[in-house]
Structures are given as structure tokens and as C-alpha cells.
């Protein structure tokens, strides 16, 4: 995960955005206590290489914006509190939990979601193809997050060891327990197993 994203930094972001944090973990990690009074602000987001104007509330998480404002539902919300990794996206190339990032904090950054890693001609990313070949997913709910963590890992470490892959994907919970098949998929994507 992004070592620059700390709990302190996240909470500071919430405070700056004028919302109070709760542990309710609804769609709004930071819930607006004053009801419908929160104002949306139009910002431009760089999502999957495109500039997308979108109205964003101060308390809105990136996971929420992607799923409910931009209809990029490939990003899954498994816990909405930074525990499972199903919502992993790349922010300036680094894997982040989109449920734990405020959208206003990424307006100057490049965000890549699962919808953005295929080639323009529709060719799957090597990680996606390898996950198919290894039959890595089971229920598939964590899979987009696993793919994004694997893409981030291989971009910084193109030939990781099995242990490095394990560590690289350790922030992505798979309740079905398909870990070994995801790890094999990453090793296949890196050309280390055929």
C-alpha cells in the first residue's frame, strides 16, 4: 500500500473537507452529520487517462466517486474501512485503497481503476490474462483489487520472487482463499512460470 497514506493524513483530509469521521462505515467513510447540507463541488479528475468532470462532496471517498458518480463499478467495496483491499486502485502508479482516499485529495493525480488497465484495443493486461490462465479468481469480488495490486507490484518489480508477490498482495483479502492461485498468476504474468 501507499506508505504516504497514513491514518493521520486521511483524518486530516476529512477535517479539511469539513466533515466528521464516524465508524459507521456506510458508503460515507466520513459521514456528513448535518444531513443534506453538504455542498458538492465540481472538480476535474484524471481517471483512466481521461479528464472527468464530476461533482464531489467534501466527505466523498474515491471508491464512492468511482462507483456511484462515474459508474466504474469494477472497483468493489468489501469493507469500506481499509481492511480488505477490494477497492484497490492506482494513484500516480501506487496501489491505494480507494475507500480510504478522499476524492478531493486526488484531483491533481492520475487515478487508474480496473477499467483502465486493458489496452486501447481491448487486449487484457498481462496480469488479467495470467489470472484467467491460472483460474485465479473464485467468487471474483476481490479480483479487481488483486489485479491492481499485482499491476502496481510488477511495475516496480517486474520479476518478483514468490515471497515478494505474497507481500505485494498481502493487503488484499480473499475470503475464498485463492491466494496461491493469485500468486501463481502474478508469477505467470512476470514470465516466470508458463
Amino acid at each position, binding site marked *: 500500500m501507499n506508505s504516504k497514506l497514513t491514518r493521520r493524513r486521511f483524518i486530516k483530509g476529512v477535517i479539511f473537507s469539513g466533515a466528521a469521521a464516524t465508524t459507521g462505515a456506510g*458508503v460515507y467513510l466520513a459521514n456528513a452529520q448535518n444531513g443534506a447540507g453538504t455542498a458538492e463541488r465540481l472538480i476535474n479528475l484524471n481517471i483512466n487517462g481521461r479528464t472527468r468532470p464530476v461533482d464531489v462532496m467534501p466527505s466523498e471517498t474515491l471508491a464512492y466517486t468511482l462507483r456511484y458518480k462515474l459508474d466504474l463499478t469494477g472497483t468493489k*467495496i*468489501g469493507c469500506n474501512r481499509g*481492511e480488505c483491499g477490494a477497492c484497490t486502485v492506482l494513484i500516480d502508479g501506487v496501489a491505494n485503497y480507494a475507500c480510504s482516499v478522499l476524492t478531493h485529495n486526488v484531483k491533481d493525480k492520475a487515478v487508474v481503476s480496473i477499467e483502465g488497465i486493458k489496452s486501447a484495443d481491448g487486449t487484457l493486461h498481462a496480469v488479467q490474462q495470467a489470472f484467467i490462465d491460472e483460474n485465479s479468481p473464485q467468487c471474483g469480488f476481490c479480483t479487481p483489487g488483486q489485479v491492481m495490486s499485482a499491476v502496481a507490484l510488477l511495475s516496480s518489480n517486474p520479476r518478483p520472487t514468490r515471497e515478494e508477490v505474497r507481500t505485494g498482495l498481502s493487503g488484499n483479502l480473499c475470503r475464498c482463499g*485463492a491466494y496461491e492461485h493469485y500468486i501463481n498468476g502474478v508469477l505467470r504474468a512476470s514470465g516466470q512460470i508458463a
Partner: protein
Amino acid sequence: MSTHIGKDFTPPCVPGKVTGEIKYAEDYKAEGMVFARLLTSPMPSGRVVNIDATAALRMDGVIGIFTADDLPPVAPPANPALASDYITYVGQPILAVAATSEEIAETALDRIRIDFERRDFVVDPLESLSPNGPDAYPEGNALVRTQEEGPEGSPIVGAQIKSIKWPQSAIDALRAGQEPVGAEFTNEWAFGDIEAGFAEAAAIIEEPFVTMGYPHHSLEARTCMAYWENGKCYFHGSSQSQSANNAGLARMLNIPLEDLVFINEATGGGFGSKIGPYPYMAITGNFSRVLNRPVQLRITREQEFYIGSARSGMQGWIKTGVKEDGKVSAVDLVIVNDGGMTGGGSGNSSAQHVTVAYQPENMRFRHISVYTNTTPRGAQRGPGQNEMAAVLAPMTDKLAEAIGMDRVEFRKRNVLDSDGFQGGSQGPVTSAFVREALDQGARAFNWAERSSQPKDLGGSKRRGLGVGLGYHGAGGRGYDGLLRIGTDGRLYIHSGVGNLGTYSYAATCRAAAEALQIPWERCEIVRGRSDRYLPHSSGQGGSNTIFTHTRTNWVAAQDAIMKMKEIAAMDFGGTAADYEIGGERVFKTADNSQGLTYAEAARRAMELGSKFSGEQYPDDINPLTQIAVQGMAGSGLVGVAKDNIPGVGQPPGNVIGFMEIELDIDTGKYEIVDYASVADCGTVVHPKNFENAMRGGAVWGVGLSGLEKHVYDPQNGLPANTGLYQCKPPTNMDVPVDTIAQGVNIPDPQNPTGGRGIGEPTQGAAAAALSSALRDALGGHLFNTAPVTTDMIIDHLAGNSYSSGAGTLKTNTF
């Protein structure tokens, strides 16, 4: 020569999973959709006296409120969608609010004021059974039959809640690891003469045990979305089975079966918690009807902990006698299940595991399931069997040691085989090759060689070797198969099997392709929503899908083959017996130039109508299948049949696990160095997915024996670990990631493909192997608990008995 069975293929949904394009229930929107959120109980027991939603309903954007008064009343102990008179656990849904945004709905919940009346509560079954102990319901703490019992396994008909109390001496005895003399039970069975069996024994061990309940925590919470059009309800939900839901959900919505369109392309995990329609589906569907708008009821992770079901825990005692030759002569077993607020303890299945593991000559089982004010309990991956496997394995090792027998040999001496039995009724099995699995696993794992290695690895590290058995009944009968050969000559296999991650929906369709000898690329699986004309299917609990639905697709294919032969006989003379199939044609055996392609046969079927194209269908198929056939009638050659393949006995799923751990006696932490598992599940139908099931189940086994448990505050009844982080499902750092998964691969004689199911025992084997390895690493110490957590290990090593099972049997607490 098999063309499809036992061969790898890519299930058609996998690309959508890696691209994020496949849709789960929460990914759908509808025009005008409003967002509903639940208000849940802050207290473990009580009732709602008054709800004041005035302030919430005055808010801009709030559309409506839905309470228990809007649904038919549900008598306890049934699990209501919304509670009022009986609040029985923290987190129980009380009402739902719908608003134009989820933010407004959440804020509105804060503005609702509820007056509650508190009641006594209890989180530990033994505390409830104690004299003057609290009961989870005002009426009592256990469900007691009021009518004659049906056959074993039949649903309870006629039962009521009663308050059962044990003498304090029985409570004390059970906690101390002794027989609870004078205790009252609600379920008992026995075979043979246990006293005679114990008299024959060369060694007898007597142990208490306790296993913890824990939540399923499927990664996809059970969010639903529903809307109505022209009297039909379109319902997006998350279920283990596509079709087994429909009848129950239609009843919840009070509509005919044909007016429900249930849409469920993908399910983000179930593990037993999404077998049938769950009560909360009634909120979404009925709220949508009342509001006349699409409603999405989103369930949060915390709410999924509350309402998403959990494994039942158990407190118990077992006395086992073994003869000099290693045969288990007698078992006396007592289980008190923690049934949570719904009951549903799986003690009978735990006892069944013991019968499979030991095939005891004599056995007695006594059982009671006690309500507690904790979350609803239900089936969770090998319910009963797997937690029993976890605590039984180290005891089995102790028995083997007592008579000086190798642990693997001891298991081979006692375990189920094809002539053996399972359960208290001593019912037969279709086939079983567990001894072969033990032999194969011992070879793959190098058991003999590893067993000769020193246990002391130097420094603070100790080696532990474990072996374990997982077992679960793995197959059902009597469901329907439905398929169609189109005028394009392609095979359309209609499947009501859900897509919960096991890919059995696809693997079972291969049976039809195999029977019809048609290449897989010319087959299409039709599934995902009920208006695609899908047959009735099993609930896909109990590892049954492979056995059950390879049979249904096989019989539907046989029906199609027979119809094609009959058509050919009409056109070319002779009888159907004069024809065979091959190369996507039906032709005369004596002259293969006389025949029809599948496409031509489909066109002829449409011309002929009646049974050939589905205008007529068998009388014995399920009403849901009848609706499906009616819908697709006239669109090709239709194969439809109920699985009436003769046969008796339960198809068992068996897995043997071998594990090596390295335990650090300074920290209590251990690493799982190696894991090898071998399944006895008949023919492996889809090898790649078989491996995935084996390894996924092993991860669950580590969770059961090492990590996962409910923790409740006994003073306030508050759950302490509602999130994933505290519940601790294993991450990839907790489990081995380079393991061996094999199958014995001996076909089951009662399945046309040879296959049986395997999903659940994969967990039991790993759980058992881990607890067995922990005992080995600790020089024979028995915790008699599941899970055994790191703090318990370090407590034991420090000479503190606080964390061991004996003496407390405490459950649901720290």
C-alpha cells in the same frame, strides 16, 4: 474416452471477473432508484416499545420508512427480517429508511428515536443452562420437539421454545471434562452397546472440547436491489444458488413464482450463508413495492457481520475407547451447541464426522442446541463436521499413541470405506476411498521420512506434523436438468446453479456436453436471471453441486439424445434403438449416411412440437422447471428430465490433509511450512478448479483452527470484532502458498461422470491437520479448542491453563 470430464477449461465468467465487468447485485442501478439503510439494535435482548420517526420523515429527500409492522408477523425463533417484539442480538435490523441519497438515509437514521424495553441476555450456552441462568428468549433457551420425530435430518415439525436447566453438578462436570450426569438433551441416538465397547477397550480417553462460532464474512455483503414492472418483481440479489431462492423469495413477496425475476449473475462468496433467500430480501422487495420505486438496500461490512450468519460453536465432552488392534470400540459424545438467536446448532453433523472418522462399533450421542443473544447461526462450510474435525484430530493422535500405533495407520484402521456407514442411522455411502487418500497423501508429503526427523529445530523452534480428515456429505438427487439444441446446432444448457465462485455451474454443464459429444465451444450456458428459463436447482449447500447437477445435466442430455433418435427413426425408419450419435449428428448405426445433424434435428423438433420442442414435459419436474420449459418451448429440441437415476447412499466428500509447522516457543507464533491434501471425491471433473477448491478450503481450515472466533462482551452482550480485521480471516501471510492438492480420482459408481463434491471437507482436513500439528509441536498438549490462537499457545507455554478448553469451556468471550 472422456472429452470434457477431467479436462481443464475456462469458465465463461472468469474474464469478467478479472476485468471487473461482471456485475454483482450492488453494481446495478435503476431509473429513480432510492437508497435504503438499516437501523439496527444497540442491545442484545429486548423489545421495541415505540418508534418516533417524525423528524426523519420531515427531512428533504427521505422517501419512507419500513418496519416490522409492514411485514407478516414472524413467531420466534424464526429470524425476522425486521425485529420488534423480539430483539435477540446486537445488530438486529429494526427498520429501514429510504431516501434519495444514501447520505440522507444515513442521516435520517440518526434522527429516529426508539424506546426499548430491555431483557436479560446470555452469550454462553452453559451459562443459560445453569440453574437460574438467563434465557435468550422470554420463552426459553432451546427448541423442543412437540411432535413425533421424522426420519433423521427431516425438518423439525411442531416444536416450541422451552427453558431447559441443568443441575449445577452437570454444568460443573462438563466444564471439568466429565460426563454431565443428569443433564437434559433434546436429541439423542445410539447404536450398539457402549458399555460393552468400553469394556473391550485397551485404552480410553475422555476429553472436554469447545469450538467458537464465527461469521462467514462473504466479501460481497448481501446488498439487494428490487423494482417492480407490470406486477413482476425484478430482484437483484446475492445467492449461492440461482434457482433455489425463487420459491421462498416469491413467498416473501407474496407473488406467484412466474412473477419473480431473480437476477444473480455473480455472487461474492456464500460459504453456506446464502443458501436460500435470507429474511432481509423481504425488506428490499416489499419496500420497493410500497414506494413504487426501485430500492437498493445496501448492507455494510459491519451489518454483514450481524446478519450474514455464522458458524455455530459447541461445548462438549467425548469419551473414546480403542481396542488393542487399533479399532475404536466405543464413543460417548455430548455436544451443547451455541445456536445464536436462530438455533441451528450442527451437533448431529459433528457426531456424523466422528462416525466417519472412527466407524465406531458402539456409539452414543446426546445433544442440545441452546439459544444465545448472539448473531444468527446457520450452515457454514462443513457445519458441524469441520469444527469437530479440528478438535477430534489431536484426540485421535492421543488415542493412536495410547496403543502405540502410527497416526496415519490408526486412521486407516478406523476410517470410512465403501462398505462403511455415516451418521447415527448408520446409513450407507455411494463409495469411499479414504484409505487410498491417506496412502497417496503420506507418499506426497513424505510422512514416514518427516516423522523420523527431530522435533527440536534448534533455538526456540519446534517442528510439528499433523494429519487430518475432512468429511461432508457431497451430493443430492432428484433435481431437474434442462437444455436446448438450437437450429444453429449449438447446445444451450440452462442452469439454475449459482455462480458463487466454485465454478460448478460450468463444470456441471460439461456433463451434458460430454453426453451429447459436442465440442465445448459449441455450447452456451444460459444462466444468471430467471427470465432466461432456468430449471430448479439445489441450494448448493453441502458440497453437493458436482454430484447433483452433473446428474441433472446428464439426464437432460439423455432425454435430448432419445428425442433425436426418435425423430431420426421417424424420418429414416426403424426404431430409436437403431440410432446413435456422434459428430453432432444422429444417425443409423447400420448406415451412418442416414441421419440428421443436431441443427436439422432441432428444426424437425420445432416442426413436430409436443415433447420434442418442450410443449409437453414430464409430470415430475419442479414447478420452476415447468415455467422454464413453457418459456422456451418451440425454440429448438428440448431435453428436460428429473434426475431419477437409481441408487442409494450418501455420496461422501473426503479430504486428507498433511501439515508441517514450525512453532516458536518464545512467541507462540507458528509458520505452516508445508501442506499436502488429497481428496476422495470421485472423478475430478474440472482439475483447475478442483485445486482452487482444495487450496481455498485449506485457507478456511487455518482460519477455523488458528484464527477466527466470535468475541462478545459478557457484561453488555456487545460484539467486539465486527470487522474483517478483528475477525481475522486468513490473509496470504497466514497460510502456505505453495501447496500440494491431489485427488484419488476413483470414479463414484452412482454418478455418470464419476464425480462427487468436495468444497467443504477441504476446510476440515486443513483444520484437523493444523490442530494435530500443534499438538505434535507441543509434545502432546491438547487445547481441545478451535481456534487455538497465538496467545493461547504462549499462555500454555508460560504454564497458564487459562486458555485451554478444560476447566472453563467458555465460548463467545475473550
